[in-house]
């Protein structure tokens, strides 16, 4: 009887194992993300992404999403907008990333060589799943998880495509390459270079007689998506290349205008820095070397690996990334593909070495001069403290909700507050018609405004700089009714033309008066901060 029960448990275990391999990492990553959030970790840009998704979902206006950023990272958050996640704005992104990573790793576990002993497989698998790079991708609230998944599909389908005549792989590759353009701007580079490299590599593929047809088929979805995106830009923004021309566009190197430099350039200037970039990029794609021995023909694998390396280099050099950690998805994806394609007799030690290399690489990347996002993440991981500004933002959010009045604000600036509000329906944001009308006519009919004082270092940016100018121009016609930290809530204050902008000449005067008024803290509140509206934080680097 006991043996019977033992067998039943063993059978149950066998059946539950795949589910466990999926559920355990999800639970772990989510718990880790929550723990980091409780220790004060947040990322303003990720919060902003979440806020925009909520706004779009609340009004069923998907065109609000991601004009200047790849919209895939917004779209994946849409299902979560049924809840506000006011206490944990990074929650949805963490859940998505955790699920993606867990799914990829669960898939990988079933494809590790069967000749390996279970503990060897678990060790390799666990080493990869628990590596600092994986933890960062899952818990940072960013888009790295999505990037990682897309790259896994791109690389894997590229491998399959070169192995044998397999149109399913061509289909998957072409779709993944196209989607990657709209999931993450970094993937844009990798996919773009892979597609271009296909022109050279196709002759070694099973489609050697139809190389150009293969290239055409592989590129077609990218062309479709790009054309569709340009059309939508023309439809909504009046310029087909708006997404590319706009100075803040991620598609042209989101960091091009930021004070942060490409990380490697800091080591010896542009020349030596770019050489360093090439070197590091080649090291990053070192796991692709495994693919070279896996794939036939090798020139094709070599071409693909070099394309990935070149893409990484080019993306760095063109300010698509500011910190090497942002490339963690690339070697991780290559490692996953390499392990999944490993021969049955592959050495588990070599795989272990690969994982250890991943650990070392991720730790090394983190030790580079950190940009704000990774710096905060590491700080939360090591020391943990809940920054006072988050408490303040939450308090302002509560106050606005209790005020019962519609609030006009620039969501780019006030993201941290809005992300902590439970409801967005009493907000009037920059994209809305009345807001746009007010900006055009310079006549503001707002019950109250939420503004942020200058130089707060939030890392966010104005969604529409004209709002700041308008508030300036209203000057003394507004009064501060609530202020905490860097935030101030303003209401009309009985001007001769209450609620109206002043004339152009007076506007300058009014603006000056307004600046003076906002700069002076209220005497009865020590916490009341001066609300400078000088440059709106435009000089502050975007954090990632």
């Amino acid at each position, binding site marked *: 009887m006991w043996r019977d029960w033992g067998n039943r448990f063993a059978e149950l275990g066998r059946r539950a194992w795949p589910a466990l391999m999926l559920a355990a990492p999800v639970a772990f990553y989510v718990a880790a993300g929550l723990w980091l959030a409780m220790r004060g970790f947040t990322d303003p840009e990720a919060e902003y992404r979440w806020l925009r998704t909520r706004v779009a979902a609340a009004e069923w206006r998907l065109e609000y999403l991601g004009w200047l950023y790849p919209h895939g990272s917004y779209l994946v958050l849409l299902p979560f907008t049924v809840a506000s996640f006011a206490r944990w704005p990074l929650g949805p992104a963490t859940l998505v990333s955790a699920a993606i990573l867990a799914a990829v790793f669960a898939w990988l576990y079933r494809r590790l060589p069967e000749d390996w002993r279970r503990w060897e497989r678990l060790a390799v698998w666990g080493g990869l799943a628990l590596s600092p790079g994986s933890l960062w991708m899952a818990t940072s609230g960013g888009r790295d998880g999505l990037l990682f998944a897309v790259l896994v599909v791109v690389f894997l389908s590229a491998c399959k495509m070169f192995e044998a005549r397999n149109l*399913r792989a061509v*289909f998957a590759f072409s779709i993944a390459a196209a989607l990657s353009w709209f999931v993450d701007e970094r993937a844009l580079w990798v996919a773009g270079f892979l597609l271009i490299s296909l022109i050279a590599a196709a002759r070694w593929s099973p489609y050697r007689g139809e190389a150009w*047809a293969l290239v055409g088929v592989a590129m077609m979805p990218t062309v479709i998506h790009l054309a569709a995106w340009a*059309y939508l830009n023309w439809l909504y923004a009046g310029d087909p290349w708006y997404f590319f021309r706009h100075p803040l566009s991620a598609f042209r190197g989101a960091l091009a205008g930021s004070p942060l430099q490409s990380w490697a350039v800091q080591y010896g200037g542009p020349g030596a820095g770019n050489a360093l970039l090439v070197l590091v990029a080649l090291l990053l794609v070192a796991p692709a070397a495994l693919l070279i021995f896996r794939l036939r023909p090798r020139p094709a694998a070599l071409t693909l690996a070099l394309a990935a390396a070149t893409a990484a280099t080019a993306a760095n050099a063109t300010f698509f990334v500011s910190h090497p950690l942002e490339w963690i998805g690339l070697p991780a994806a290559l490692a996953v593909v390499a392990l999944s394609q490993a021969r049955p007799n592959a050495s588990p030690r070599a795989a272990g070495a690969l994982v250890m290399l991943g650990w070392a690489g991720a730790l090394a990347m983190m030790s580079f001069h950190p940009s704000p996002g990774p710096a905060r993440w590491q700080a939360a991981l090591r020391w943990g403290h809940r920054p006072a500004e988050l408490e303040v933002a939450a308090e302002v959010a509560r106050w606005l909700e209790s005020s019962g009045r519609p609030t006009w604000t620039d969501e780019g600036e006030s993201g941290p507050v809005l992300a902590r509000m439970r409801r967005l329906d009493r907000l009037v944001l920059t994209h809305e018609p009345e807001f746009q009308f007010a900006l055009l006519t310079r006549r503001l009919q707002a019950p109250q405004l939420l503004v942020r004082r200058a130089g707060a270092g939030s890392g966010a940016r104005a969604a529409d700089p004209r709002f700041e100018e308008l508030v300036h121009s209203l000057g003394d016609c507004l009064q501060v009714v609530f202020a905490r930290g860097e935030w101030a809530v303003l209401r009309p204050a009985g001007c001769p033309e209450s609620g109206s902008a002043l004339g152009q000449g007076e506007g300058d005067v009014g603006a000056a008066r307004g600046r003076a008024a906002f700069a002076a803290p209220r005497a009865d509140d020590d916490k009341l901060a001066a609300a400078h509206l000088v440059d709106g934080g435009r000089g502050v680097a975007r954090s990632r």
Partner: protein
Amino acid sequence: MAEFLEDDSSRLRLGERSRAALAAPLGRQLLERGLLTEEQLEAALAEQRSGGGRLGEIVLAHGWVRPLDLYPLLAEQLGLPFVNLLVEPPDPELFDATRRQEYVEWQYLPWRFRRGRLWLATSDPCEETFARLTADYGEGIELVVTSRFDLLWSLDRLARAPLLADSILALWERSPESSARAVVTRRQVAALYAAVTLTLLGLALWPRATLVALNGAAAVFLTASFALRWLMLWKGSAARLQQKVTAEEVAALDECSLPVYTLLVPLYREPRVVPALAAALRRLDYPRQKLDIKLILEEDDEETIAAAKAAGLEANVELIRVPASLPRTKPKACNYALNFARGELVTIYDAEDLPEPDQLKKAVIAFRKAPASTACIQARLNYFNFGENWLTRLFTLEYSLWFDWYLPGLEALGIPIPLGGTSNHFPTRLLREVRAWDPFNVTEDADLGVRFSQRGLRVGVLNSTTFEEANTRVWNWIRQRSRWIKGYMQTYLVHMRHPIAFYRRIGPAGFWGFQFFIGGSFLSPLLVPILAAIYAIWLISGTHLFDPLFPPLVLYLSLVSLLLGNGYLMHFHMLAGLDRARGSLALWALTLPAYYALMSAAAWKALFDLIRRPHHWEKTEHGLSSFQCDVARLGKSLR
């Protein structure tokens, strides 16, 4: 008058005849009389050893011996009388129309009744036939030998009226709800009337909301159709990785175990294609003695009948003349010919078809591997003249996508498969059980596939291709396509007569797949010109007239279907072209919008035809291609 009828001394028992036959084998006798050469006899015997069957059938199937030489010799060898039924026809009084199927299967007919004994004419005078007939009719029977052609001719003459009535009305009489004889039922008319009334009422009372609802419904429908095609492509590509029947399995097949295979080949006013057809049939890699080929000809189509007679076809090819009657459709002709089918399996080929030589063997293997509920296996169709002009290129891409990707996808998703018009293989018994094709449906094949699904029977897809001639002329193409689309409309209307029962029978996947795949095949091309016109007006004039019709959600769906739907459709066609090793066609997929414009024209024509002449068969003219497919290269250069 046959004198042996009055002469008792000529009669022998069959057992004695068999012993006599063993003493002087048929082959030796054919050789001695100079009817067969030594080499032919050796080849025939070798074929008999590998594929089984009777020597007589083998030499007839090769055309080495004429039936009028063989059957009298056979009769002589067995000590039985030979009768030419054209000269001495059977007694019509003895003919029992209810046993006509048995006559075909057992290859006999009651011929005469004299002096208390029933004389049965058979073309298969073996012990088994004798035992079977004795068990059925009792000891008082006698056999005479006749040729298979005589039997067929006599059966056709005697049973013409009931056979014809059956071929037209069998489905209608047994299951009127499954027949397209009535295009719409009263209930459907009432539902249509109610829908139109409500729409008009809505337009009068709430014009904007109604127009938004209609626009929204169109957007949802088009987007869902696109999503389904995406899914089908993905599933189909996975299914295609699993070769259903491999070359190794074909090589390992024991030919002796192969069943008799009936090939139905309908022709109508196509004398030009007969030589190519004969060549294609001879290329089939299947024991010839086990092929039962029926060329189905309209009785009044003298030209094609003459061409078929002149083609020097072997004795395993029989000409079935379908009496002139309405509706003059291919399914009616096939139903009629099915009455004469002897095969355990049956398939249809069009006159211009070039099936891959091993297709029949693959189908046999596929049936053996498939569940017993498999009622049909559909081979892939493609075109040999794909590079002839723009139309054939696009047509080839479309067919490649449909048969190579969509159908496996439908199979994987459990959605009813609308059969293609040719190269569908059936177990004859199951086909007869469902009363075969609906003669009033102009895409009887698609209807049959859905009917099988409704009965819980499976339709599978086979990895073997039949090459056809793509339409080369635009108007001919539009006529052909309008018939197909009209047929889909008929099929949709027939199967949606009882939607709830239909849903219960084929399940949610099948039901919704049917809506968007079969429904989408005619509704999409009907809708597209309207939506395209709205778009063009907006694009050119910049008018805001249509803005209220596109609230955000409807706008997004419309954009998805406009941008991604059309874009990906091109991509799918490119993939299908590449898959067929026809990379040169891939870029032609970029001109797909023009091809779909033709499709819309055909759809609107189909709608008018459905109203004006629902059962009219728009005959496609074949043999127009300047490309002549080299049959010998089939399967090598074309994939």
